[in-house]
């Protein structure tokens, strides 16, 4: 049927699946950004650098302790999350009452520092990190060859994304968090430690970025600029989905991954820019984003 459009259905399904895989990374990263912006009102420009730190942490954990991919998937986000907590306590907590721009500038500066330090010690060509034994190889699905690792990427990120959404939207802890964002003084009056919750939320958002970084390490080049290449696109995803909307970030992440994948098939030279074209259109039609709440 598709032949009449000049494409084979095989190639199309293959590109759709690949788009979903890339969408997983967009979804994971934009989820972290949406959590941080929705809860803390901070535009976390160092998200890309924290994703990079997750990948580097996985590499260093392997070098210095011999622990492989699976332990790194838990340890690296915790370590990077702790650095996030330190950043929040030292720098960000003074900025909540100010204009968004200050948070953006601070986190942007931090991102440049993290990247520069990494480049100084490790160079920019990148470091080797291989796919774990248990996930090597793949299966032939008929329309394409799907590496096992990429299948894990989709599955793992779906689980983490919807787990996070569930905790924030459907549990009591999430309810406290959402209430604290809307009216911190009232929530404090109920005896809930709001500053600590906010610190831990930032740490969690950063840990999500690091988790995406560990998942990326075996397939993408572990280099200091891996985050800055991705973060611009992720910001576009978050803006399209609606800043502050968790579900919006997840659905938009997967959706835009698919659209980008199709563009890579039909018109590859434009694959860099298609997401921004969509962002421009969405902002014209719905300025708050597809799922966003009007402020």
């Amino acid at each position: 049927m598709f032949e009449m459009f000049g494409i084979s259905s095989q190639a199309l399904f293959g590109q759709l699946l690949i788009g979903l895989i890339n969408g997983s990374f967009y979804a994971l990263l934009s989820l972290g950004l949406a959590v941080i912006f929705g809860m803390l009102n901070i535009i976390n420009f160092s998200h890309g650098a924290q994703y990079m730190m997750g990948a580097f942490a996985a590499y260093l954990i392997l070098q210095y302790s011999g622990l492989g991919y699976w332990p790194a998937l838990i340890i690296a986000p915790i370590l990077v999350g702790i650095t996030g907590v330190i950043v929040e306590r030292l720098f960000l907590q003074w900025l909540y009452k100010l204009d968004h721009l200050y948070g953006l500038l601070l986190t942007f500066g931090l991102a440049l520092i993290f990247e520069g330090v990494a480049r100084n010690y490790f160079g920019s060509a990148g470091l080797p990190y291989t796919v774990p034994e248990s996930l090597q190889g793949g299966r032939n699905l008929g329309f394409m060859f799907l590496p096992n690792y990429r299948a894990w990427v989709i599955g793992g990120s779906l689980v983490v994304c919807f787990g996070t959404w569930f905790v924030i939207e459907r549990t009591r802890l999430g309810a406290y968090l959402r209430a604290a964002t809307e009216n911190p003084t009232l929530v404090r009056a109920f005896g809930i430690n709001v500053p600590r919750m906010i610190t831990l939320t930032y740490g969690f958002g950063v840990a999500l970025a690091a988790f995406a970084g560990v998942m990326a390490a075996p397939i993408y080049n572990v280099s200091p600029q891996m985050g800055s290449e991705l973060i611009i696109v992720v910001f576009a995803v978050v803006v399209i989905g609606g800043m502050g909307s968790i579900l919006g970030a997840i659905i938009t992440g997967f959706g835009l991954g698919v659209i980008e994948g199709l563009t890579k098939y039909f018109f590859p030279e434009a694959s860099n820019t298609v997401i921004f074209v969509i962002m421009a259109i969405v902002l014209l039609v719905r300025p708050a984003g597809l799922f966003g709440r009007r402020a």
Partner: protein
Amino acid sequence: MRKTLGLAALAAVLACGGASAQQVNVKIGVLSDMSSLYADIGGPGSVAAAKMAIADFTKDHPDVKVELISGDHQNKPDIGSQIANQWYDVDKVDLIIDVPNSGVALAVSQVANQKNKVFIVSGAAASDITGPKCNANTIHWTYDTWMLANGTGTAIVKTGGDSWFFLTADYAFGHALERDTMAAVEKAGGKVLGKVRHPLNTNDFSSFLLQAQSSKAKVIGLANAGGDTINSIKQAAEFGIVKGGQSLAGLLVFASDVAALGLPTAQGLVLTETWYWDMNDTNRAWTKRWQQERQGKWPTMIHAGVYAGITHYLKAAVALKGNLSDGKAVVAQMKSMPTDDPLFGKGTIRPDGRKVHPAYLLEVKKPADSKYPGDFYNIRATIPADEAFRPLKEGNCPLVSG
């Protein structure tokens, strides 16, 4: 009155005397990618190589004073030409060297021509620099896309890889490499089944590799470099491309890329370079010195080209007695002198600005065969200097008559 006249005359003589003294003052600028995907193949390593060239030369010529500056063009032609303009005009730079990224190199070449200064390309590859876009102020050292295409491309077709699919970086370098390799493949009897162009600095190649897989070509030619090549090769391994019977042709691969990939992933890759750190004792000794500034890294042929280019330029500067105001004259002087440096040996610079020297067909070793860190390659063949580069008459360079 007479005293003043006498003093004025003395001052005039002393001022003129400066021109006939042997003091040669040179200012050199290393313009490179210091922070992005090409920073390890050029970048701070080129600055280190430049410092070594200056130190070695001024040791034998104490009357030569060289000032060195460096800058980051960030892979953007507009930034590169803006820095070049400022360096030539305001900062009185005589020579700009390196510039990986062919788009930036072509832009800087124009600037050097307009300002009548000197530009030695070590990092960039597009053979257009000594082809249709050649000019009398630019010299192309180290390598170019024609050499890569005819080294690696021809060798692979001869061993049976006669159908190709190209994965090309969508800018000047990728287009030039794809064009030259297509010509070399077809000349050797192969055919090209298709191509796909990806943006520079792409993270994810799965979509493009899928298209390459479905083309059923025997060879997938990677017309990209640096981080793009590393990602392509890593992800090709993931998608079982080599296991499925297709092979990868890394058309431009550097030692730093092999180090980033690791030998298990990179083994078997066939590539062409004009300098390898482990080829002989001179190279090894030079590398040890270079590594004092760049610990843990491996020098690439681009770094060697920066060292050799500066050495030859300084020889020309001394021959011209420090008169560097006419860039075309300096380049003409460089073309008239045969080159001789510890890294590339004896060679010449042709009228179109192309420096010629032998090229080497290399193969990445299996992990078991690598005896020490940095032991990356087996040398498969040597391509002599007169065959390694495009014949002078075929380049369409306006400087070449006939």
